[in-house]
């Protein structure tokens, strides 16, 4: 059932390849630490890990430019990191510290960064879709050529919000890049139990926008596919839908007993793991040595350690400031 692991020569420059690998490693190590910190009670609330899906955010966001907008979900640590939110600000946010990228108010599900053009982190499934459509509308009306990339899970496609947002984007030919992270499950609900049409590209195509399905475990395939899709959107040709076929190796959140899937299925998908298959290919091609890999990994580990130290050293918002940022302070003339 499961496709063979990504293999064969990596069709991109070594520098690019190593940067993709590095970013996947940074995500992985950061999230492994998050899981640990959750166990230690340093991170609270809901925590949704992206482990196994790193190739998607990595390949896709590498295809974007600094001026592009990104809208993500509650499973957005990776997206935040690759959009350029510092790992220290992300970690501090998960701690709920004032130095966090959302001043500690949002936590894991609500990473925001105006400078990085990250419009969240949204804990309502499908909630980001109309938002991205609106951002794209603003761009179109202001004559800004920018890609508005909206990430969402395959589960979100059953929501009315998906239907309405995609129809608007296609109807008005807005610059939205719809990035569906199809990890086959919405919590414990398998795709076939949530969609009458499990071919997600066929479903999206019914809104008359171009679509593409790529192997979401192959970072280069993700990158190439997203480049193509983003070029279409950036050229003002309207929205584009990309399906990334991926898999989540961990539980949905820290509360999930994973009753709904077989351990063997998870193990089988792990053979397609984006980091080890990619590094193996690079090694095979002579683009990477084990030492180089370990150096990258060490670098990621060090960045994580620094981020944790930063978060630990962070400060708590004083309780007196509870009500700040409910409204924008208005300077009266």
């Amino acid at each position, binding site marked *: 059932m499961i496709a063979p692991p990504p293999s064969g020569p990596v069709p991109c420059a070594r520098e690019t390849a190593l940067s993709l690998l590095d970013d996947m490693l940074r995500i992985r190590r950061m999230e492994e630490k998050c899981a640990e910190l959750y166990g230690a009670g340093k991170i609270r609330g809901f925590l949704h890990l992206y482990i196994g899906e790193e190739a998607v955010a990595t390949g896709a966001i590498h295809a974007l430019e600094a001026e592009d*907008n990104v809208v993500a979900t509650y499973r957005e640590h990776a997206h935040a990191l690759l959009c350029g939110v510092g790992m220290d600000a992300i970690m501090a946010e998960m701690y709920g510290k004032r130095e*966090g*990228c*959302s*001043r*500690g*108010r*949002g936590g894991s599900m*609500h990473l*925001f*960064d*105006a400078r990085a053009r990250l*419009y*969240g*982190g*949204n*804990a*309502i499934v499908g*909630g980001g*879709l*109309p*938002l*991205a*459509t*609106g*951002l*794209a*509308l*603003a*761009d179109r*009306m*202001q004559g800004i050529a920018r890609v508005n990339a909206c990430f969402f899970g395959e589960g979100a496609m059953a929501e*009315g*919000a998906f*239907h*309405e*947002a995609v*129809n*608007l984007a296609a*109807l008005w030919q807005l610059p939205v890049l719809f990035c569906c992270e199809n990890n086959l499950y919405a919590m414990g609900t398998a795709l076939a139990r949530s969609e009458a049409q499990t071919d997600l590209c066929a479903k999206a195509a019914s809104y008359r926008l171009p679509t593409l399905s790529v192997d979401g475990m192959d970072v280069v395939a993700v990158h190439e596919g997203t480049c193509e899709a983003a070029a279409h959107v950036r050229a003002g040709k309207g929205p584009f839908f990309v399906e990334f076929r991926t898999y989540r190796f961990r539980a949905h959140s820290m509360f999930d007993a994973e009753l709904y899937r077989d351990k063997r299925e998870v193990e089988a998908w792990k053979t397609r793991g984006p980091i080890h298959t990619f590094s193996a290919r690079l090694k095979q091609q002579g683009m990477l040595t084990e030492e180089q890999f370990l150096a990258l990994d060490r670098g990621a580990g060090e960045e994580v350690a620094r981020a944790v130290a930063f978060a630990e050293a962070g400060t708590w918002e004083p309780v007196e400031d509870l009500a*700040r*940022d*409910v*409204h*924008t302070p*208005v300077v009266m003339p």
Partner: protein
Amino acid sequence: MTRMSYREAMREAIRAAMREDARVFLMGEDVGRYGGTYAVSKGLLEEFGPERVRDAPLSELGFVGAGVGAALGGMRPIVEVMTVNFSLLALDQIVNSAATLRHMSGGQFSVPLVVRMATGAGRQLAAQHSHSLEGWYAHVPGLTVLAPATVADARGMLAAALADPDPVIVFEHVQLYNTEGDVAEGPVDIRRAAVRRAGTQVSLVTYGGSLPKTLEAAAMLAREGIDAEVVDLRVLRPLDLPTVLASVRKTRRAVVVDEAWKTGSLAAEIVARIAEEAFYDLDAAPARVCSEEVPIPYPKHLEDAALPQAEKIVAAARALFGKP
């Protein structure tokens, strides 16, 4: 000073805002080619074109959410949700995105969005088309909620709403569109309630579509020798309590009039605040005149019986004086 209808005042407000600021646009179902369900936007398509007077498909959640996104993206959208009844479909985007984005992002993102909607009953549109849910919106931190009850406020509040960097919801009662009144130039203040009729013996506190009925009740009470003050809340969130409390402290009696169903109405909040903060200043228990606890029925006699009416307000006020 110019005389015009509430509908015209609203239209002029939109027109002026769109002329002044290229970022302002109007989006909603049938705002363009149809001319607006309540004809508010009639003629605007011709002046501003279909990009800025944007007809949206029947997708309340989608286009309200798109309004939130467009506001984030630097525009100043005025989103028209045809009526409050349909706004239930869009409530998630208003409550979970528009109202919370600034706070959740630690102050990085403001949402300068204006959502206009028609509200209220009285036109025999029955149970699904007669809601008064202003109180629900007034419950949500992060929102500002306006209820222009006069033509002047219809003309003046929009500019102030657009100048607000955060989301503002504007409720236009369907029974007001044909009312006429005078307007002056320039934006009006959207922080304060207004005393629409000064009086000394009882405070009638209300807003939106109930203001005309309440003023009528005050006139009836005057003929009975009861001098009522009428307070128009104008801003439903944040409430201008000082104005309400000052009135009640003066008159020592209060009747709150609200077209919502009584239980859980905004009127409950006003009564609660009066009880909490002016308890020792009252000569009588505060009272409410609200809609009966029933989905609004179609036939006129039953609809009338379900809604607040001047006579009921008069009776409630009279009872505070121990009169039958």
